[in-house]
């Protein structure tokens, strides 16, 4: 980092700024109040000559730049200079575009601009240039947990990119849940054209290729396989994970990794929960998984029914068995793979005996995409009977089985006789316990709550990763026990940095999807390892080199930071001081917001860098009728919304002063109390949606902030201020009309309740 700071200010007069504002006044403010010795004006700072001017200053030693002009979201490429600190005063979107160009508004508009320049100068002085901590080096080793098709694919793809892999397989051989596949659902769609309207070259069941895949894994020099092994302990962080790999014999080896992929696949649904279908009452009723094993054993020979060895001449498949149902013991979701799986299995029977009656009772036949629909037609062409029917019961009869069902097309209660019934049952993710179930135990306030949490934890499955993390041993779960990313745009978003889930642990899926998924997870693992080596943050603040640092002497070991970190990044040392694990950190600042004693900060984002902006704002006296509203806005959604509102010509009150924050979770209550005591009349916090469908890109930041703010009421009453002076809003990036309206409403409220008495 530069030994001493050299501050330079730049005032862009383009985009109508000079027409709307007294730029000389701004310059004077920057120099006199902002204490920036040198402030330059430029007619279009983003143009090549403007950018060159800045570059020259940097070459001449400038380390800290104040850019007053357009929003920090604009002209990012033009103003990206390495190894300097930059603060930006948003005069264009934030001021002149947000205010009407009329003489009577001129004064307040100028005041806005003045304040934003003051704020940018103040912030700048408290910004440091982050530099890598070097906490971890490049470790190219990737740990893959799970020896199934997903894990093997992840291992092979990672190795193919030149990264060594350790594959931990909890069985004596590779293959996992798909090991017993006789054939697989085709991966491809029909290739050729359609002569005379007849389908040709429809995809048929394919060789599963699992043996070949296992062979490739074992032969790959970059892949080390640990058989009969599990993770007994995983500690560290991206770039320096340490995993204890323990086998059934009890022997443990410790290996170090850059990143981890969890590919523990799924568990078969327990069909004993389906007595209505006579499962368990007769061996002739079996699950799709069991039939697969039967078919593999038969290996092309006629399939016989278990009860008496009779060659199966008629078989019925019951789709959605114990699935897509709210009934107790059933799976509420659709397992996605079962429709094509049943078509494939029906074709097993057809391959042996084209006259075999194969009926598939389905509700909705789900064969998406190109390959899926082709495979459906393939089944029909081979004379598999598809009937939209709801099965109610399976009973034994003299000759075999009777399936009772409602034929929804013929609209009648009917039945069919068959030798064998196959229940298309679903997948259950093979995951460890939800970490928050564990956290609930320590966090419980009363003994009863603690006990309840404990009981919940007891029924939880055993851990897969055994993470040595403050917030629990495994990856947080989303819904129905799956580890899927919550974000549609970011399927590999993870809440444990450097650990990526792949395959059916994320969401139910067939083998092809699991393999595709493994490739993506491998990509992210490699990326995480590389980023850690550069001490750079991963998604969403990609490349951010700053990380939390804290004043140990000030820390009260209250654990708020270790408990509230949405990414479980922070551990506690033996003296219960926080251990931040830089490369696990996503730089949201939730820990900073959590800290009651304000000892946590980032080099480029700190209690001070924001507090000083708040203080820098000029607060007119009580009788000026010019209230000041502090707006703390999420930089990803609320702040862009305000920018775009201005772009769309929507007015915002001239009394608002907007400070972008990384996440509402980073908001320190001290900012609130300080601004109240320094005379702000209202405070508006704008964060992201925080319910089940939360939009907060730091997962819980927005929710945590709301929770903290709920307690701020007391502070207000102490200062005997009206509660409506502080509001928290959920704002989406699309709220172009709403976001400014919320600020204008605050201004109106202040008109009603009056100015703050705390003006000095």
């Amino acid at each position, binding site marked *: 980092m530069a030994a001493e700071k050299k501050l330079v200010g730049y005032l862009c007069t383009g985009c109508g700024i000079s027409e709307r504002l007294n730029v000389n006044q701004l310059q004077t403010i920057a120099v006199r109040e902002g204490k920036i010795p040198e402030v330059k004006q430029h007619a279009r700072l983003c143009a090549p000559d403007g950018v060159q001017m800045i570059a020259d200053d940097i070459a001449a030693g400038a380390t800290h730049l104040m850019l007053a002009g357009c929003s920090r979201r604009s002209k990012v490429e033009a103003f990206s200079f390495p190894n300097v600190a930059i603060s930006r005063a948003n005069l264009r979107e934030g001021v002149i575009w947000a205010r009407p160009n009329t003489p009577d508004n001129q004064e307040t508009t100028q005041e806005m601009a003045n304040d934003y320049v003051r704020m940018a100068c103040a912030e700048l002085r408290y910004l440091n240039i982050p530099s890598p901590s070097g906490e971890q080096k490049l470790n190219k080793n990737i740990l893959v947990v799970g020896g199934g098709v997903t894990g093997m694919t992840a291992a092979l793809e990672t190795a193919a990119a030149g990264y060594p892999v350790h594959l931990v397989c909890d069985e004596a051989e590779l293959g996992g849940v798909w090991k017993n596949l006789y054939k697989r659902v085709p*991966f*491809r769609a029909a290739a050729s054209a359609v002569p005379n309207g007849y389908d040709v070259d429809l995809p048929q069941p394919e060789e599963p290729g699992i043996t070949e895949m296992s062979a490739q894994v074992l032969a790959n020099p970059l892949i080390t396989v640990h058989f009969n092994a599990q993770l007994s302990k995983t500690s560290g962080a991206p770039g320096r994970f340490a995993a204890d790999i323990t086998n059934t014999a009890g022997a443990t080896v410790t290996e170090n990794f850059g990143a981890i992929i969890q590919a523990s696949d799924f568990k078969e649904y327990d069909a004993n929960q389906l007595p209505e279908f006579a499962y368990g009452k007769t061996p002739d009723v079996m699950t799709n998984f069991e039939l697969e094993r039967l078919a593999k054993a038969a290996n092309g020979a006629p399939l016989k029914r278990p009860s008496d060895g009779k060659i199966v001449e008629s078989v019925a498949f019951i789709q959605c068995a114990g699935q897509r149902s709210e009934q107790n013991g059933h799976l509420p979701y659709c397992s996605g793979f079962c429709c094509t799986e049943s078509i494939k299995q029906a074709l097993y029977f057809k391959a042996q005996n084209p006259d075999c009656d194969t009926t598939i009772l389905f509700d909705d036949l789900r064969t998406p995409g190109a390959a899926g*629909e082709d495979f459906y037609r393939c089944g029909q062409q081979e004379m598999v009977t598809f009937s939209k029917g709801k099965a109610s019961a399976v009973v034994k009869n003299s000759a075999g089985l009777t399936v009772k069902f409602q034929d929804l097309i013929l609209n009648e209660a009917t039945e069919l006789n068959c030798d064998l019934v196959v229940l298309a049952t679903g997948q259950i993710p093979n995951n460890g316990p939800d970490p928050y179930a564990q956290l609930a135990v320590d966090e419980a306030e009363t003994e009863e709550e603690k006990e309840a949490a404990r009981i919940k934890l007891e029924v939880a499955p055993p851990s897969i990763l055994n993470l040595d993390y403050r917030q629990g041993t495994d990856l947080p779960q989303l819904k129905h026990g799956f580890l899927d990313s919550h974000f*549609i*745009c970011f399927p590999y978003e993870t809440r444990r940095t450097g650990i990526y889930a792949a395959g059916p642990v994320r969401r139910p899926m067939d083998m092809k999807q699991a393999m595709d998924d493994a490739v*993506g997870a491998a990509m992210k693992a490699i990326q995480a390892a590389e980023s850690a080596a550069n001490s750079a943050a991963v998604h969403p603040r*990609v490349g951010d080199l700053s990380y939390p640092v804290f004043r140990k002497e000030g820390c009260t070991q209250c654990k708020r930071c270790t408990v509230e970190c949405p990414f479980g990044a922070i551990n506690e040392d033996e003296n219960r001081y926080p251990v931040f694990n830089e490369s696990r950190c996503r730089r949201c600042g939730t820990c900073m917001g959590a800290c009651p004693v304000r000892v946590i900060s980032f080099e480029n984002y700190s209690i001070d860098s924001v507090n000083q902006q708040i203080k820098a704002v000029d607060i007119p006296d009580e009788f000026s009728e010019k209230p000041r509203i502090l707006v703390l806005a999420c930089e990803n959604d609320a702040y862009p919304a305000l920018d775009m509102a201005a772009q769309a010509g929507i007015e915002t009150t001239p009394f608002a002063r907007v400070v972008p924050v990384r996440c509402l979770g980073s908001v320190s209550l001290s900012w609130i109390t300080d601004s109240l005591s320094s005379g702000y009349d209202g405070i508006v916090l704008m964060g992201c949606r925080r319910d089940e469908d939360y939009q907060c890109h730091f997962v819980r930041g927005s929710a945590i902030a709301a929770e903290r703010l709920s307690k701020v009421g007391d502070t207000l009453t102490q200062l005997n201020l009206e509660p409506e002076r502080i509001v928290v809003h959920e704002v989406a990036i*699309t709220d172009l009309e709403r976001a400014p309206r919320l600020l204008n409403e605050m201004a109106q409220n202040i008109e009603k309740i009056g100015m703050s008495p705390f003006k000095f």
Partner: protein
Amino acid sequence: MMAVAATVETILVVGGGISGMTAALEAAETGKQVVLVEQRPYLGGRVTQLYKYFPKLCFPTCGLEINQRRTKQNPHLTVLTLAQVTGLTGAVGDYTATIKLAPRYVNERCTACGDCATAVETEFDDEYNYGLSKRKGAYLPYRMAHPARYVLDPAIIGTADAEKAKAACKYDAIDLEMREETLELRCGAVIWATGWQPYDAAKIQPYGYDRFANVITSVEFERLADVNGPTGGKIVRPSDGKEAKKIAFIQCAGSRDRNHLLHCSRICCMASMKQATYVIDAFAEQAEINIYYIDLRSIDRFEDFYTKVRANKNIKFIKSKPSSIVADKDGNPVVHGVDTEGYNRYAEPHDLVVLAVGMEPAVNQNDFPLALKINREGFIEAAPENGGVFAAGCAADALDVNRSAQHATGAALRAIQVINRVARAEV
């Protein structure tokens, strides 16, 4: 002639939609040199034209903001807009791509102040809104467009309007002398992410998209519902601006149909259920929605959304492929068909009919610059024959946004595998 530094260790990404952006960013954020080529004047592709995503009902622009920030900040990523790959030769590890750059007539000095748009008069159908509104001959494709630079419509070049635009610009950002350029660049691997296009609804004759104003497509409906769209989010019907409270959503409009698209487009069922929630949000109890389907495909976790939507008594699901649509005297589209669950005939008038149009590959079977393994539906199959060219997203199959991004992330690794092999070979 612009120059783009590229070597056999460069990854070329064709298509700047969600898949292309994802693939490009994942590779660049792993330290690889990436060139991203997009045909439109801005990045983001079709997701920029969506109002919400299923099943979360969140806003595409939210993730787009992050992806744009990632793009702006990444030193390894070069973005070419208004660019098209016209040729691709070579083999895995060493390709040469020919790229045609259409003139934007606006250079990087543009501050997006909008003075040019105010100055010009000629208006055109706004392709961003599928022609549901007009835009000027000088325009910002949409409010959040990246790059945030205006574009001049080629049609106004050589007219007085072009001169007006130039005169209006204070930053001499308008360059009427710009001409089409062709550049060649080397790369070791190619990610093909050209995405999809809505199937031409006019070809589905029984539904009369070309005859009835109040029969529209699902992509058009997204624009209609968007609070920042042409109607400010008011769900009104084209013929007379009347509020559309009773709406039919027809599934498999072009999909699963040998007369049109053979494949199932996967997203349409979910998209229609999502759009049904728009109508419920707008009209609450007054909303009346009929969803006509063959098989309801809310696969895996999406089932939760189906369960939620189905619980609303104003949304009905009818297992039927409607046979035809006719307009009654008041211009209400009347949907005719048979509910196959027990053979019930219906002739149901609606305010508006929304055709859940299928996804077809944006690039025609025969228009690929080099031979790739393409299936009957026109999607690129994952096959060794394709060498160092890897499909990402909807170029490979009909996928939803989440699966596209997932698939694109994988494609990035495949490309990196090639690049790393090349790099190892070089040392």
